[in-house]
């Protein structure tokens, strides 16, 4: 018996439901967005993208179940392997990686492209949780600096891939975990303030031209409505025109007629807004609310600091993705190109998220300190 029946009784059914529901919605919307082919001239199998997405879901679910059979603390024991392996993979992708739309973030493995930065997020959560649980007091400056340094190395490698969005996710995860780990609020605020002060330097000297243009387009998308502002304008139109009940599944003109770019990946929420309306979009947000709440709850009941921090990190990662991605589709956030968890087409992302949820489920399932 791999999995103890008594443990299964403690499985968080709400979290499982939330994630499954999101994955289901994701598959349906990916189908809607890709059934006519993406872009002109593509005449593929209408189920091509859905099939790949479902395959990733199955693989991710298997990984999830595998995690449940083990105690999550095994991951803590493997922290060194995880951290070094993570950095090696991120470094390797810079050397032999495959470039897709500006970011060198993919390994090509036969027909599939794997994005190590997606898994790197989960790896960071695990290693940082160990670091924070075992490390010196993060209320000291030294502890804080070490913690940031721990996150900074993989984040820097991701930045080198030109993946600003994912690097920012690393930052969000780190802040949330530090906060729950007990870092002083004013220290964290000071770091944020320093970041804000440094942002002009980053903006003018470190960002690539297209990243700068995207940020400017966020401030005023109509400055270049057919260029950098195009995505945001079309996405806003798609969502706004969905109105209360939406245009109906498969009937979103913006997405179906390809006005909306990347509508099966980064802009999938726009399709939801257009086709399922306010009702559907809010329902999706509610599902995220449920998943996030269960993650925070898992953190609150975790039997040790490591589990608590891992659950917190997963919650922070998912929240950050939702905020930046959904915000981007509604012109609340700049276009950074990070996917919407469980919904956006993309196997690496879906599998990484399912693995992350696997840990949260495991943490919750094994929450009792006294065993039987």
């Amino acid at each position: 018996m791999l999995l103890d029946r008594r443990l299964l009784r403690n499985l968080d059914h709400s979290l499982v439901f939330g994630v499954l529901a999101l994955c289901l919605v994701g598959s349906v919307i990916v189908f809607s967005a890709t059934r006519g082919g993406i872009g002109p001239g593509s005449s593929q199998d209408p189920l091509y993208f859905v099939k790949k997405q479902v395959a990733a879901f199955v693989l991710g679910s298997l990984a999830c179940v595998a995690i449940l059979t083990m105690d999550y603390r095994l991951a803590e024991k493997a922290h060194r392997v995880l951290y070094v392996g993570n950095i090696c993979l991120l470094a390797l992708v810079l050397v032999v990686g495959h470039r897709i739309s500006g970011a060198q973030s993919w390994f090509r493995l036969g027909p599939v492209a794997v994005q190590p930065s997606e898994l790197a997020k989960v790896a960071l959560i695990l290693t940082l949780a160990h670091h924070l649980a075992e490390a010196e007091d993060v209320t000291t400056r030294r502890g804080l600096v070490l913690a940031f340094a721990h996150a900074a190395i993989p984040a820097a490698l991701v930045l080198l891939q030109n993946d600003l969005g994912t690097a920012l996710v690393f930052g969000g995860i780190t802040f949330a975990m530090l906060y729950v780990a007990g870092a002083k609020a004013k220290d964290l605020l000071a770091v944020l303030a320093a970041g804000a002060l440094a942002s002009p330097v980053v903006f003018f000297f470190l960002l690539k031209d297209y990243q700068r243009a995207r940020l400017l387009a966020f401030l005023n998308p109509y400055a270049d409505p057919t260029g950098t502002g195009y995505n945001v304008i079309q996405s806003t139109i798609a969502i706004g025109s969905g109105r209360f009940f939406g245009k109906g599944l498969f009937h979103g003109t913006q997405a179906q007629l390809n006005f909306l770019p990347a509508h099966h990946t980064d802009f999938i929420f726009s399709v939801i807004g257009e086709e399922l309306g306010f009702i559907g979009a809010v329902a999706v947000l509610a599902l995220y609310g449920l998943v996030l709440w269960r993650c925070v709850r898992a953190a609150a009941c975790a039997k040790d600091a490591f589990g608590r921090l891992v659950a917190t990190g997963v919650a922070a990662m998912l929240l950050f993705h939702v905020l930046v991605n959904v915000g981007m589709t509604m012109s609340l956030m700049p276009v950074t190109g990070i996917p919407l968890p469980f919904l956006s087409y993309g196997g690496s992302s879906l599998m990484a998220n399912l693995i992350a949820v696997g840990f949260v489920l495991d943490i919750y399932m094994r929450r009792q300190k006294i065993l039987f």
Partner: protein
Amino acid sequence: MPESTVQQRLKHVAYVIVAVLVVLASRLWYLQIMRGDAYEALSQGNRVRVIPVPAPRGKILDRNGVPLVTSRMAFSVSIVPQDVPDMEATVARLAPILGMPPERIREKLAAPRRPFEPIRLKTDVDPAVVTTIGEQRTDLPGVVVEEIPVRNYVYGDFASHLIGFIREIDASELKSYKEKGYRPGDLIGKVGIERVCEDYLRGVDGGEQVEVNSLAQPIKVLGSLAPVPGSDVVLTIDERLQAAAERALSEQLEALSKSPKTRNARAGAVIAMDPRTGEILAMTSKPAYDPNMFVGEVSPEDLKFLSSTPSPQPNRATSYAYPPGSAFKVITTLAALERHKVTMDDRFVCTGRDPESGKLCWTAERGRGHGKQDLITGIANSCNIVFYELGRRVGIDDLAMYARMFGLGRPTGIDLFPGDASGLVPDRAWKRLNFKGYDQRWYPTETLDVAIGQGALLVTPLQLANVYATIAAGGMVHVPEVVRRVVSPDGRVMREFPPKVAGSVNVSRESLDILKQGLAKVVSEGTAAAAFTGFPVPTAGKTGTAQNPVGDSHGWFAGFAPLDHPEIVVVVLVEHGTGGSLAAAPVARKVMDAYFGLDREKPETPGSGTGAEPGPGPAGSAQDMPGAGLAPSGTERPPISR
């Protein structure tokens, strides 16, 4: 860290989660509920385009229904600027395909348009160009190929001044035609019938509502509004007679310009008119242009031709006024008869020189005169001595009055664009108004000049045709007409144009009879006799040789036939033709031949034995006539309808 603080901090994380979700949901509320209708309109605008479907322009037909101007389908290349992501690249790619300089394309793109309306870059492009654009479709987003009707001038430079042409509407026209629904890029009649009948010919454009994708490629048609084709305009022109006039004048000009004496004869005009109605049966002006050149872009060669001399642009039949020369003597004659300044018993002696003024007759260069003549012989000889005397007797005041009664000195009122010229009838008042000091005086010799159609007197060929039509019709003055009726595409007659009477000239029957007698003698044994040798129909006519200060004399002929019941007036002008008898009368003869069906080498007799040979009348065989098969039993051409 105490457990309670940890729980506290997790609670804060939960608050942040709630805050984020609330912010996102609020934004959804704002976009979808508060601004939903505005965004819906935007998404509609994104995907729905209205593509105008131009209405086919009405045909222009001759009086028997022979199509002179039709519409044919042609490919046109347009661009929807809103759908072009990179205009520079698109223009650079498109320019060589269309064979247009990029600046020209940019010029067209600069014109103000409504959003998403295609801007037409080139009309009537080669099918090969369409294929090329189709192949590069994905590299040319926003470039559309439409099939639109364009003008087809069936016979090329045939009655082209009369028919005119259409071109893209210009800015000033746009201002005055805006309330009629014209938009930039629309075609509009610029000259001739195309212009004056614009409202009938134009029709109402339709539109097609199509759903497009993000590359502006049509996905499906949502709805369409069929265009209403323009109405057909039936002219008074007879295609066969017009063709004869075109040919006769062209051949004559070619022949004349080859001879050293008449090498400057390179332009002219012919008018044929029905004196009973004022209908123009043929009107040609040479040199002429082919209006087909205005479909699409005018080529550099065509532009060069249009600005060559003698200019092919003006309609010499209506727009230019010339001294009429001896052709004017009909008015001098009538004025003298009506004012009782001459009788049939009067005799005039021509020695080649007018004894009172010292002015010469045209025979003087041959060193002799016409001798003793009566009025009729004077007309037949076109003797200047006789008409100096008549002019002296009548005086300039009455001479000018009769000239004006016959419609000279003002436009005839023909509905054409550009309108016809006024010409000039000089008299004392004219001199007072237009000259200074001693020059204001009217000199007696000026009266003599007017009496023989010289001096400051100027008439257009159309005015002269109208004068002869008035004489032929017994004094009735018509407004010359070129349009018979307008017929809707479903065959309904929308408007008839009945003959328009402008007034009548108060001249007695006797005077007219005397004049006609003289004019008949001109043709039978006078100055036009050589040209009309063997012409079976009794004909009246007058030649004219109009001296002009800028070059060789102009040659005129004006006449009508049959003498007793005139059906046709023909006026021929040959610029710098040196003489009416030589240059103009032979052209008139050919036109008359065609009208009376005598232009066959040997008229075919119908084999069916239905009876009579076509007599001297408006009938003849016509095996090359379009629609000849419709004629009853045989090859006889239907007479020119009236």
